[in-house]
């Protein structure tokens, strides 16, 4: 079982040490509003960065910049040694994102969806990889059903398969355990949890779990980083400040 889990979680070449993410003075605006204003942080390879903050603090914007979906308007962003946005195309095969949307086509079956993404990412031994992931997430029996017939939790499990299909080195996770019951959470844990061995950026409102799973915490408030420290060194006052309980 351990070998199987390790094989499923295999996340590409991660042997090299050093920084996985380096952000300096990152700004991103929506019209006149600063969604991110001078955010800076660093993260080592295979480590987890928990991004905490209230709604609208800039967490999802940060994730979308790292996912190459949004252009930074200022500052410097390096991910897995690649400069964004200049080297976005080289970065894309190395990242996997699990966000609010499952990014699945409702009229296609779970297997067809995964097959589609596997073709886009040119995943070797496509069918075997898909079969193993569906088995690991407990979705093999429902694999031939259109996604529209699946519950939100089941669709989320398929979305986990989609996000890790191409063995990404960096996982961008926005509330990854949302919609999952404890059993389903345990099933996907080897794929997107710390055991996966990938560098992770984890956005979550489950502060306790995020702190327990992370090496570093980035606290955002109104687009500004008010906490950037190793998880073990973040005092509870700082967490309260992130959520606005202390001004």
């Amino acid at each position, binding site marked *: 079982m351990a070998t199987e889990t390790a094989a499923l979680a295999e996340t590409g070449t991660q042997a090299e040490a050093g920084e996985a993410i380096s952000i300096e003075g990152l700004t991103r605006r929506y019209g006149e509003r600063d969604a991110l204003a001078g955010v800076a942080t660093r993260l080592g390879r295979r480590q987890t960065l928990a991004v905490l903050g209230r709604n609208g603090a800039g967490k999802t914007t940060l994730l979308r910049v790292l996912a190459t979906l949004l252009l930074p308007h200022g500052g410097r962003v390096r991910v897995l040694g690649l400069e964004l946005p200049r080297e976005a*195309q080289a970065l894309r*095969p190395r990242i996997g994102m699990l966000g609010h949307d499952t990014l699945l*086509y409702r009229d296609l079956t779970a297997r067809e969806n995964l097959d589609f993404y596997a073709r886009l990412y040119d995943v070797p031994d496509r069918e075997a990889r898909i079969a193993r992931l569906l088995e690991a997430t407990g979705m093999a029996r429902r694999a031939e059903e259109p996604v529209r017939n699946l519950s939100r939790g089941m669709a989320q499990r398929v979305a986990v398969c989609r996000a890790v299909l191409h063995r990404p080195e960096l996982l961008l996770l926005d509330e990854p355990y949302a919609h999952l019951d404890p059993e389903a959470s345990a099933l996907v844990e080897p794929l997107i949890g710390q055991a996966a061995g990938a560098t992770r950026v984890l956005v979550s409102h489950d502060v306790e779990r995020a702190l327990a799973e992370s090496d570093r915490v980035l606290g955002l408030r109104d687009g500004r980083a008010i906490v950037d420290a190793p998880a073990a060194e973040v005092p509870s006052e700082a967490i309260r400040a992130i959520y606005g309980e202390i001004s």
Partner: protein
Amino acid sequence: MRAALAIARKDLLVELRTKESVPAMALFAVTTFVIFHFGLNRNRLEGELAAGVLWVTLLFAAILGINRLFVAEREQAGFDGLLMAPIERNSLLAAKAAALLVYLIALELIALPVFALFFIDSGFWHALPRLAAVTLLADIGLAVVGAMLASIAVHTRARDLLLPILLLPLTVPAMIAAAAATKPLLSVPFDTGGVGKWLVVLALYDAVFGLLAYALFDFLMED
């Protein structure tokens, strides 16, 4: 090429399963022919009137399909999955244009025989090989321009309004050439004079707008 094939394959699979675009386009075309048939009160059309009725109907039917080209991305999976994938953005354009081309060909396989049934006495089957060349070249242009404009319109709230407003002026040259090439083919007696010249015009339109779409699409998909 691999990515374009994967996306086009996915689009055709979704269309086969939902049957949303092609049946609506075909139904629109057939209904329009019925309206023309009774509205004009004529059992036979020829020359430029026949060409006009045919191409106006095909163009408006095509708009229905173009409007739905990115619906699966807009309402279901979102664009993020495609934009994060390690693929050239132009492969999305190629895939959507290819899918639309298949929709248009399917539409014409239904619409052309119905058009002949309603309006053409004889000689239609004789003209069909050349008419097929005209429609194929016009379809390629419509598919490329339609895919490019649909990718712009899909991000706007007024997409259903915006698409025809953008599309119709840009397709005027192709429609003029297609109608002009079709006119002698649907004339009595059947004629092929000038068809070759208009086929060249259509091919040029396809090439120019193909290059334009290729150059612009990456920019249109940015952020």
